[in-house]
């Protein structure tokens, strides 16, 4: 009888192809872990000479001199530049985008949907085009109509506005960065606000709340987690953003890159890499130094993201528990 062997054979074959499928999928899934491990290892390995040479001074130093024989590398000014531009961009961008999200989620669909679509479309614009627009159009208007008057009025009394505005400075870069994170943050915030159950709003209105009170009392507590997540997503974007910032920030190096005022030129970690990477010779310490900058940038971005994730999941957990009880 061929009945039994055939059945057995079939059983074996099914076992095989499905196992292959599962192995393939698992490999693809684990690929991301392997790549991350490789990236961290490679960056550390290739920047090893600079850590030997400069030690911890690499992070705190302010000198940046790639010239042969007088080499000295410190990334502190660039770390500062990244932190300042990102913080300013957040301060400008996040309230604006939550405002946009509030408006879009509350407006009648006829206005809300096209507006939401427009904002989402802005998210798809490549950063190099923001840079181009910032460099040729926005910078000129911003310098003439905003920075100059501020400088003329407050320049002598407040150190923040003391430098002569050129347009290629920290403030311009931050504002363009803010414009760039608005679509991301507001799109996510909009989804979050849309996800708040309708009953929540109706209950607030029923208690006689005004529109603002409704947002404050009924929407924000419910959507807080998601809104924080959206903001941190924007922060991650801002920290890693390269090209637009490189085109606008003025690209000072070394001690000059420590910003003296909002109108002074600066440099961020990603822009120094973009500016100097191709010219750096692999034989000197210049390339390891730039890779070291990449490592510092990466660890900052990853820390921000992990904190965001932990925060969001923990708060979500609490919220779900509260609803269940």
């Amino acid at each position, binding site marked *: 009888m061929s009945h039994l062997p055939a059945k057995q054979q079939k059983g074996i074959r099914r076992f095989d192809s499905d196992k292959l499928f*599962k192995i393939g*999928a698992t490999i693809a*899934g684990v690929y991301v872990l392997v790549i991350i491990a490789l990236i961290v290892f490679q960056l550390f390995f290739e920047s090893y000479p600079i850590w030997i040479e400069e030690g911890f001074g690499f992070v705190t130093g302010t000198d940046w001199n790639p010239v042969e024989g007088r080499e000295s590398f410190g990334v502190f000014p660039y770390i500062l530049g990244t932190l300042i531009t990102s913080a300013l961009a957040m301060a400008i961008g996040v309230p604006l985008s939550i405002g946009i999200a509030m408006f879009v989620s509350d407006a009648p669909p006829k206005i809300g949907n096209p507006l939401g679509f427009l904002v989402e479309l802005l998210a*798809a614009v490549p950063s190099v085009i923001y840079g181009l627009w910032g460099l040729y159009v926005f910078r000129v208007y911003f310098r003439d109509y905003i920075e100059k008057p501020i400088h003329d009025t407050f320049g002598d009394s407040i150190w923040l506005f003391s430098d002569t505005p050129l347009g290629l400075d920290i403030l311009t870069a931050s504002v363009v960065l803010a414009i760039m994170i608005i679509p991301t943050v507001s799109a996510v915030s909009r989804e979050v606000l849309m996800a708040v159950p309708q009953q929540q709003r109706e209950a607030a209105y029923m208690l006689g709340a005004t529109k603002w009170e409704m947002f404050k009392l009924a929407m924000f507590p419910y959507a807080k987690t998601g809104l924080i997540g959206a903001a941190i997503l924007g922060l991650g974007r801002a920290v*890693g953003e390269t090209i637009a910032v490189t085109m606008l920030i003025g690209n000072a190096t070394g001690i000059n890159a420590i910003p003296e005022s909002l109108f002074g030129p600066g440099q961020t970690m990603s822009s120094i890499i973009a500016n100097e990477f191709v010219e750096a010779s692999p034989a000197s310490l210049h390339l390891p130094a730039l890779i070291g900058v990449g490592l510092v940038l*990466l660890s900052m971005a990853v820390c921000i993201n992990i904190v965001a994730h932990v925060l969001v999941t923990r708060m979500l957990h609490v919220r779900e528990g509260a609803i269940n009880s």
Partner: protein
Amino acid sequence: MEVVRNGAAALSIEFLTQTPGAIGSGEGGIGPAIQGTLIVIGISSIIGVPIGVMSGIFLAEFGESRITKLVRFFNDVFMEFPSIVLGIFAFLVIVLLLGHFSIWAGAFALSLIMFPIVARTTEESLKLVPITYREAGTALGLKRWVITFRIVISAAKSGLVTGILLSVARIGGETAPLIMTILGSSQFFAGFNSPMDALPLRIWRLSLLPYDSAQLQGWGAALVLILIILVINIAVRYFVLGKSSNLIGSIIKQRNLKRV
């Protein structure tokens, strides 16, 4: 918008097909850049999409375990990696190894940006397929991979296509990782192992030049790039049309339904 007004003046057949002229002369065009963008996007899709889709299947179809949780978490973290760091990685792994800047390196760097996006959207859209579809497949005695590829994926097709197109639009505009991988060149395609131009890269280089003609060409290139990405985005809209206004929204709605 500003880009359209300034860019339209630069457009002509020569501009779209010629190689760049001498620096500052205002002649020539962005032909190699367009070609390069398309080639690099194509190759990185060939690398990135299968990995992303399989990884999404891994996350959605094989149940929850410690590994899937880990993979999902790091996938999300990886999505927010600064793209310039991925460029450095591709430079170290491929450019230094092979000894020259190449299309492979650029495509590899972009595929790294691409696959986590594809993986997450694939996972989310596979999870929207009702479990009964899979049960029906199992009842017919189909193998697991047949069920997944023939039934589940065809049911979730629009979500998958959306994710892929979104990631293509994203990498189409990436500049930072290309600086240190494909480097840029003013010639047409000359083999996968040589440097190549790309639109975002060309715009960046043009913006560094102090000539008005370079500025004009920059606007023209920007317009072309925006048009490409706009077309992709409209394609996305077309694919999700009639299903739901957008993927993330529908997922959140689904979750809320479950909670209520």
